[in-house]
């Protein structure tokens, strides 16, 4: 073998290996789109969140049956976060670093969201939070499909005050969700000329409410705002009913999440009023079609709640974003959101993503629990935008503070 031939062989080998290297990323572009799913499939929150995983699976099956996202199949990477914030951090690192997913669908409690959000920021990932919450997250790495206080409280609280009276007692879970939601309630009650006659924060995991019930009875409350979270705190309704508190209740989390009206014996949840963007009782053709195909796929599903609908919508929104962007690159996806016309006709009607906050518009249903625990809908607010963050000065198309704001801690004025 001459020197020249040997050189040529070497060059060919090198060329071959660079071709292989170049083929690597190309192959990844054609391979499946990987979606991380971090939800509480066991522990205190499991009752409300197992259904989210099934909803994501349902949407995935439909998308794959119709040819995938831009021709690429969807592959789910599912971890059980066990209602434990540390698990969220651990698994968020794992899906972003080791499994290298394109997007993550994660989180039930606001504590868990705030636990994983810095990690999503650190690795510049993209996460969908498909839960109603206390609002205010202005973070370009997050897309929120759940309802927020201007959709749930600005509708509910004035309606309740008009219907039942101006004196309000709040019973809230003692962590960021309950504290910030209670702040919203307080502000809206004051704006509407009402009075907060009591406010009490309950540590997560507490299940005995005799003293709180006595405090409520001793106050002049016209209705009680219950922002209780988790299975243990749900014991309140049974205990309040057996002590014959008899006051109407208002909430942003009950029924629509934990289907308490199905789990407890009537009439313990009678006169509970909840603003929600979806529950299975909603009597529209889109909702009925959704319930039908959900039950066909998961006949044993105890209840199809608002988080199930939001998770299903989120999958379809992501499909649209990737197909319009032509890539899973986050900057390109944000570019599509900035166009301001990302909408989806889902189980809860038409919803659209707001470019400034990356939150979603919702039609809000006021669900009232009757004495026999059937649901009626005394009022519907059509198509409410998630306006607060944008009005307050959060604009993710301009810059990304990656912060959470509250009424008492709004975005800094520019």
């Amino acid at each position, binding site marked *: 073998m001459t020197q020249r031939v040997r050189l040529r062989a070497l060059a060919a080998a090198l060329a071959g290996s660079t071709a292989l290297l170049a083929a690597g990323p190309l192959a990844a572009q054609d391979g499946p789109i990987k979606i991380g799913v971090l939800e509480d499939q*066991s*522990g*205190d929150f*499991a*009752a409300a969140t*197992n259904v989210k995983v099934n909803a994501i699976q349902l949407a995935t099956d439909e998308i794959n049956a119709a040819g995938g996202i831009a021709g690429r199949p969807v592959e789910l990477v599912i971890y059980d976060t066990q209602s434990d914030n540390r698990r969220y951090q651990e698994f968020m690192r794992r899906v972003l670093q080791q499994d290298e997913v394109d997007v993550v669908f994660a989180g039930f409690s606001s504590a868990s969201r705030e636990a994983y959000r810095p990690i999503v920021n650190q690795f510049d990932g993209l996460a969908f939070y498909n839960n109603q919450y206390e609002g205010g997250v202005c973070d370009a790495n997050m897309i929120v499909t759940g309802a927020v206080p201007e959709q749930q409280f600005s509708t509910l609280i004035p309606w309740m005050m008009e219907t039942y009276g101006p004196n309000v007692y709040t019973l809230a879970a*003692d962590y960021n969700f309950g504290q910030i939601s209670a702040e919203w309630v307080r502000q809206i009650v004051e704006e509407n000329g009402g009075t907060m006659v009591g406010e*009490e*924060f*309950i*540590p997560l*995991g*507490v*299940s*005995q409410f*005799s*003293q*709180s019930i*006595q405090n409520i*009875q*001793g106050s002049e409350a016209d209705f009680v705002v219950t922002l209780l979270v988790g*299975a*243990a705190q*749900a*014991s309140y309704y*049974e*205990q309040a*009913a*057996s*002590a*014959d*508190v*008899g006051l109407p209740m208002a909430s942003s989390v009950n029924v629509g999440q934990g289907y308490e009206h*199905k*789990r*407890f*014996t*009537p009439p*313990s949840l009678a006169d509970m009023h909840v603003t929600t963007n979806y529950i299975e009782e909603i009597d529209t053709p889109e909702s009925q079609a959704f319930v039908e195909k959900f039950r066909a796929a998961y006949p*044993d599903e*105890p209840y199809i709640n608002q988080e199930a609908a939001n998770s299903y919508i989120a999958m379809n929104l992501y499909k649209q974003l990737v197909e319009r962007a032509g890539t899973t690159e986050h900057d390109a996806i944000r570019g599509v959101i900035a166009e301001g016309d990302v909408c989806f006709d889902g189980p809860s009607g038409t919803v659209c993503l707001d470019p400034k906050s990356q939150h979603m518009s919702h039609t809000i249903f006021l669900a009232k629990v009757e004495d026999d625990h059937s649901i009626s809908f005394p009022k519907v607010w059509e198509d409410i935008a998630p306006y607060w963050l944008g009005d307050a000065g959060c604009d993710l198309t301009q810059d990304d503070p990656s912060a959470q704001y509250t009424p008492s801690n709004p975005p800094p004025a520019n």
Partner: protein
Amino acid sequence: MELFATIFAMTYQFGDAFAFLVISCAGLAVIFGMMGIINLAHGEFIMCGAYVTAASARAGLPLPLAILCGALVAGIVGMAIERTVVRHLYHRPLDSIIATWGISLIATQGVLIVLGSTMQGIGTPLGSITVGDRSYSAYRLVLMAAAIGLLVGLYLLFYHTRFGVIARATIQRPQMARALGVDTRRIYGLTFGLGAALAGLAGGLYAPTMTMVPTMGSTFIVESFVTVVVGGADIFVGAAPAAAILAVIKASLTAWYGQLFGQIGLLVAVIIVIRVLPGGLSAWLKRSKQ
């Protein structure tokens, strides 16, 4: 009348806290306090009792019978676990912690997988009573009576029956009891089963007032361990006064500063008791008697 209503309200809160502490700790007092086994599956025995109670009540059994049913099943499960696992771990407290913790994890996750994330509740019976301008759950008064009945019943069982004498002898001096012809293995099994049945009874009694989920036992755990630790080794001398003192602390702090401070007060009380009276209230009471 106003004064009476206020006094009733305070007594009711105290009684409610007292009943919760006594009922949730009774099973643990037998298994941990008497037998010295650190049983981290205590909450799961409670959950077992609650689930069986709810299932049999929904199947048409009257509630008192359903509660007994729950206690019975929890007791049988407890005896089976004693026979298969715990029996080999007497005098190995650290190993028994790991083993019972494992049982607790298996039970919680197993129930979640087999029966789903929730079970429909059965509703609180008996309605409410009105005193002054406040109304109270009548079933909670039944729970208070049950707590006192439980203490009296256990006292009679352990101090005035043959089984009680043999059980105490077996646990305090096993060699001597064996020398006198007692089948100590059987007594250990029965005593553990009794503890598990008492935990099941707690679950059954509270089942109508709570959310039925696989993790429901964990809401009893802190209160029951705190009561048993404060009470000390002798449950009959220790547990009742411990529950009474802790109930006063918890009810008054909760009334004045809210639930969070009630919880903090409970835990601070344990820290102080462990520091000042390492043997718990019962050791201190016995010493001051002598």
